[in-house]
């Protein structure tokens, strides 16, 4: 944040007088996240930061850049590319790399590509397992990463609310929700055996509103898809899907319509539902978010498969 948490400090004989101690809650979240990122970077041999191109990843990357300024983060970034991301996201990824100078690794599950696993023929569940979960596991194994930072927040979903900030994974990348290590204060246990790993969630205590506010205050660039614009969409059972390229399979008689829409979460375009909106800048997005009553992940189709599906996916190794 631009303003440090101290105003008009006078110090005499080493004792601090008149210090305005009260940090804003955003500053508290920021300082906690930076502590977490530095702690993991110092204790693990080979960390990596997952970069999904979304606003949460963007914020996490921003904090990582701050944590090691004026140097660079001592770890690379990894994007698991399903080949079905919005074209604007891929462009944005390139810009992010050029702007920050960080190393970005891109991994795609080639086995999935060979079998032509796609969101239309295979259903969101199977598709997500193959292209996202398996792709992620492949990449972690390939490079031998023992720590992966993820941008997940505890307010997103009920099973996430119980996950530790330093979340242990066995050698198969699996999470055991009933057998989590106690996590007290900010004393993080980073001990693992060879082949095991830890997923670290520096944004655990941020809410969606916190993220948007910080993005706005810090002027962190976001993919333009988050802001409303006229885009070609089709209505599928009440969900607006954007026709991002010619791989989109239209149902008979279905005709893309130009609508003012934006996305609350970004992922694979056939699985990301848009909302109709006029919010073309971030304060308007926040305003709209605060006055609507639907939670963020509602736009993410993968959670709809069954009750508790996120927990099942996480057990298997999904973020």
């Amino acid at each position, binding site marked *: 944040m631009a303003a*440090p*948490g*101290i105003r008009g*400090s006078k*110090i005499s004989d*080493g004792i*601090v007088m008149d*210090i305005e*101690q*009260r*940090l*804003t*809650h955003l500053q*508290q979240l*920021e*300082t*906690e996240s*930076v502590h977490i990122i*530095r702690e993991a*970077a*110092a204790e693990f041999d080979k960390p990596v930061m997952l970069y999904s191109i979304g606003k949460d990843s963007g914020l996490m990357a921003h904090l990582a850049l*701050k*944590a*090691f*300024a*004026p*140097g*660079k983060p001592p770890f690379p970034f990894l994007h698991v590319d399903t080949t079905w991301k919005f074209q604007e996201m891929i462009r944005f990824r390139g810009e992010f790399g050029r702007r920050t100078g960080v190393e970005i690794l891109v991994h795609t599950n080639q086995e999935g590509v060979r079998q032509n696993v796609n969101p239309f023929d295979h259903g969101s569940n199977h598709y997500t397992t193959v292209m996202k979960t398996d792709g992620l596991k492949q990449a972690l194994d390939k490079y031998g990463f023992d720590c992966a930072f993820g941008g997940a927040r*505890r307010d997103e979903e*009920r*099973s996430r*609310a*119980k996950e530790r900030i330093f979340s242990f994974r066995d050698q198969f990348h699996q999470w055991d*929700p*009933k057998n989590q*290590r*106690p*996590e*007290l*204060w*900010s*004393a993080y*246990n980073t*001990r*693992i*055996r060879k082949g095991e790993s830890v997923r670290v969630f520096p944004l655990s205590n941020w809410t969606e*509103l916190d993220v948007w*506010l910080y993005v706005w*205050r810090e002027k962190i660039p976001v993919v333009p898809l988050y802001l409303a614009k006229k885009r070609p969409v089709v209505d599928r059972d009440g969900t607006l899907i954007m026709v991002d390229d010619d791989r989109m399979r239209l149902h008979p008689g279905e005709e893309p319509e130009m609508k003012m829409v934006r996305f609350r979460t970004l992922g694979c375009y056939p699985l990301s539902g848009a909302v109709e909106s006029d919010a073309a800048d971030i*304060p308007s997005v926040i*305003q709209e978010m*605060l*006055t609507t009553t*639907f*939670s963020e992940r*509602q736009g993410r189709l993968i959670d709809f498969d069954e*009750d*508790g599906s996120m*927990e*099942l996916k996480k057990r298997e190794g999904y973020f």
Partner: protein
Amino acid sequence: MARLSDAELIRSDIQAYLARYEHKELLRFVAVGSVDDGKSTLIGRMLHDTGMVYEDQLAAAAAASQMEDGSLDFSLLTDGLRAEREQGITIDVAYRYFATDKRKFIIADTPGHIQYTRNMVTGASTANVGLILIDARLGVLQQSRRHAYIASLLGIPHLAVCVNKMDLVDYDQEIYERIRKDFQVFSESVDFKDITFFPVSALKGVNLVEASDKTPWYDGPSVLEYLETVPIADDHNTTEFRFPVQSVLRPNLDYRGFSGQIVSGAIRDGQEILVLPSGNRSRVRSVDEFGVAAGAAAVPRSVTLRLEDEIDISRGDMIVLPDRPPKVSRSIEAHMVWMSETQLDLQKSYLLKHTTQTVRAQVASIHWRKDMDTLEEVPAKTFDLNDIGRVTVTCTRALYTDPYTRNRATGAFILIDSLTNNTVAAGMIADLGQHQDLDALLRETRAGSAIKPKTQVSPRERFDRMGQRGATIWLTGLPGSGRWALAYALERRLFDEGRTATVVDPTGQNLAGVISACKAATDAGFLVICAFPTFSRADRSLLRERVGDARMLEVYVNTDPALCRERRPDSSFEGFEPPQTPDVVVSLDNMRLRDSVQFIVDRLEIRGQFTRPS
């Protein structure tokens, strides 16, 4: 002009709202209660009534509600894991978030049953406020006292006691007052800045968000009003500067900084600092925040310090101000919560993580354990899961500590089992009130380990690796009795059963050498088999003394002397003293070798050689 509510401001002036939201204070509270206390309902209700539940989440909860009268089951808004929903209980710490016009809140939602003490401790470790529930129909139970004790132990400054289910006692003031009085009597034994009581009904939403007309006799604030206003600014330690170094930042030749989080106190450019353990002093050249000079910073900022002098500092060191240094010690007294299913092992060395330092440590002694029913201090030999007590811990390197009651960062540590890597205990350093001057402090940083150099592997750990306890199996008998044949047959048999056994070959050794070899291998957890000839009882008792009675199995190979003589006509049988009380007797003239082996193996089994030591 009247202050607009958040909701009004969001609609009329989003930028003004964002400015307000950004400056909200953050309050963390832990909510503790059992399955039947209605805690999940209370939290669900609070989230719901502050508009923090989205419609789709509400719909999901409504669909899953199985209330008799068809109303919404608020607890479903919070119970997260599948296992919990199936069992209808909260088994782990869940974190929830909501904001009101005044503050932003993080709730640690923790179970209250005694078997989940460790989860409550986890949630309580960072809380400003502890919120505990008491069932109005049941009054102050042992469980409520336990919750308050743990909250106080974990250093939570403010306690809110919600007397819940007031609707089920017709909002009876007398009942409420009696519970309040009971609790106050008990609370003289625990330590809080303040304790506040609330008559509530989570189910009906009474006195949760707004004051209710159901309790006209109660004129205090609602629970939410209390949470919005309880003063927390003074809860930080702002006077004793402590900066545990997380990492050294050296992006180029011109920049060398030390990164970390200020866990207490404040620092500014130009101040003289002291580095532990080196004792080196320097001055702060610049307090940098994320690469930008900030001039000064205070708890809890994450910053990078650059110093005037090139002194050697690394992760785990601590930068402090010389006039108020922490205590430096390799032996600490602490309250400890045992969090593992595996018992505390006083002979084992654990890893201790304290701020950014990890050292080897042993629990040297247990002073007492808290009996969770009576809250009395009772003697204890070990700790089991959820036990709480007071201990002395000795470390291989010095820690830089403050009493937990003064500093929740430098006063806290965790213990990690270095075999399983699990977090097994949490410690809160006690205040012994001893003064340490600067010279004594620096001497302590240079002193050696408080743990006398000795094995750091306990017998129990060895057992867990080898599946057996070490023992020496000593075969005694006349020459020609078949001792060596038996020794090697026994080794083969034990090996085939997955045991680790070895025959000590005495070639070129005297008795003293053989005894040393047997002892070393027994210590290492081996089953040592030896048939070195020992004619005299004195020799065998020497062996017994060195190896230890309990780890020695004396086998008398009592083969018929005539047969032995026949086999070894040249050997001298002079002076052989048969054992008086052998553990096992076999005779290879009327027993088959295989049966003799079986006999010995059975004996080992019965002695508990393959049973985990307690």
